[in-house]
């Protein structure tokens, strides 16, 4: 029931007594932002496109049914673990959506390990699950993605640079490819909130100061784009897949942040490879 602070020499993250994120601070500039985090989901649009009905959400098409995601009321349980090398907060948003927030000693990022699935579909609704961060940054409709895996591109909500957009899909129409990073900038405070991913995902900033990344989908209708079956992988036990991945968050000053994400992105892309072997030798014998 007490507030909890996860902190190293670079960043601190404050949790409220219920396990919700509250405030993220860059300890170099001493600047803080309000931040919340949760796992939410959109119900996929149903429809039978082969009979000329609505375009359903499917493998090629992301089309949520509605503009607001479904959410739980916050983590139903949370547990903190404090140690000399790593601090963790284990959060459970629902029985099938959980997360570990983690901070290693001396590392300039906060790690989020999400585990989602099996997505329940007994209610006959397909679901598309996103991890969401809401910050107090004033972003004025702008956000940035690495899009093609090379240069960073500035995205503007409900806007295209080269034609007049008639936005008919307020959520899906603002989703962009994220190969390794998406970030928000507040020109007024000079702060940047960066999310690095461990895989290519879809990402968006549907509201100013917000970032969301899609992590898992389970859908019940074919989208008529050629696959011929719904994207509904059940896995070996026929219950649906459980997917796990990581995101790495950094808060810093815009002028300094590229130094972090360029270097860190390379480290994650070419991560060390461990291999193991049995032994009963002593160190002296082995060496």
């Amino acid at each position, binding site marked *: 029931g007490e507030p909890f602070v996860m902190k190293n020499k670079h960043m601190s993250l404050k949790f409220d007594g219920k396990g919700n994120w509250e405030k993220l601070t860059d300890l170099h500039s001493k600047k803080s932002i309000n931040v919340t985090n949760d796992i939410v989901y959109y119900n996929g649009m149903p429809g039978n496109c082969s009979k000329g009905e609505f375009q359903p959400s499917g493998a090629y098409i992301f089309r949520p049914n509605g503009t607001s995601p479904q959410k739980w009321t916050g983590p139903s*349980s949370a547990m903190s*673990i*404090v140690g000399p090398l790593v601090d963790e907060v284990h959060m459970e948003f629902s029985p099938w959506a959980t997360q570990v927030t983690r901070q290693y000693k001396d590392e300039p990022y906060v790690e989020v390990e999400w585990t989602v699935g099996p997505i329940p579909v007994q209610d006959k609704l397909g679901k598309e699950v996103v991890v969401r961060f809401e910050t107090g940054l004033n972003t004025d409709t702008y956000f940035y993605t690495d899009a093609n895996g090379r240069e960073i591109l500035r995205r503007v909500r409900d806007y295209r640079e080269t034609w007049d957009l008639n936005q008919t899909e307020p959520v899906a129409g603002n989703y962009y490819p994220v190969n390794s990073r998406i970030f928000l900038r507040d020109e007024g405070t000079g702060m940047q909130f960066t999310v690095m991913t461990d895989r290519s995902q879809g990402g968006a900033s549907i509201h100013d100061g917000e970032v969301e990344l899609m992590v898992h989908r389970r859908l019940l209708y074919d989208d008529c784009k050629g696959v011929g079956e719904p994207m509904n992988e059940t896995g070996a036990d026929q219950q649906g897949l459980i997917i796990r991945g990581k995101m790495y968050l950094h808060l810093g000053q815009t002028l300094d942040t590229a130094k972090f994400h360029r270097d860190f992105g390379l*480290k994650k892309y070419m991560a*060390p490879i461990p*291999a193991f072997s049995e032994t009963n030798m002593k160190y002296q014998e*082995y060496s």
Partner: protein
Amino acid sequence: INIQVLKEAMGVAQHHDAVSGTEKQQVAYDYALRLANGRNECQKVMNDAMRKLLPKEKEGPAAMEMKYCDLLNISACTLTEQNKEFVMIVYNPLGRTVKHWVRLPVIGSAYSVLDPSGNTVETQMVPLTKRTTVIPERKGHIATSELVFQVQIPALGFSTYMVKMTQGKKKLTKSSNIRGFV
């Protein structure tokens, strides 16, 4: 010749946008099989290369076969779970020294870890989350905690760490429930 298997699997996968869900399920299984076969072949190549770097067989460790744990992300690794002593070799594909956090699934309550110079490495035990233990792909794996420590690896090289279960007191960490499940 051996790495050609993965090169071809990747070629097929990238050409067809595999692993994105835009294929029939049977085809997705085939893509996964091709990638897994390619990965296995590459691990054999890594093993051969490692043997050349290690001392000659009669002198010791070169006879050891290195095993790769592809399911470390869900805390599953038969070798670290079933052995009280093991060696970990970490290869760094980058052209500069890196530090890297390792999390090894284990069943013991305390371990000692020695770095390449024989110095003791600081470690921490972290219990697995309840969710981790019910992931179907972990069936048969028995780890209850992860052994966490940091390794340092030279550019385009490898570091060797020796891990041994000890009788020491459980070196776990302070944990507390923020709010009970309702």
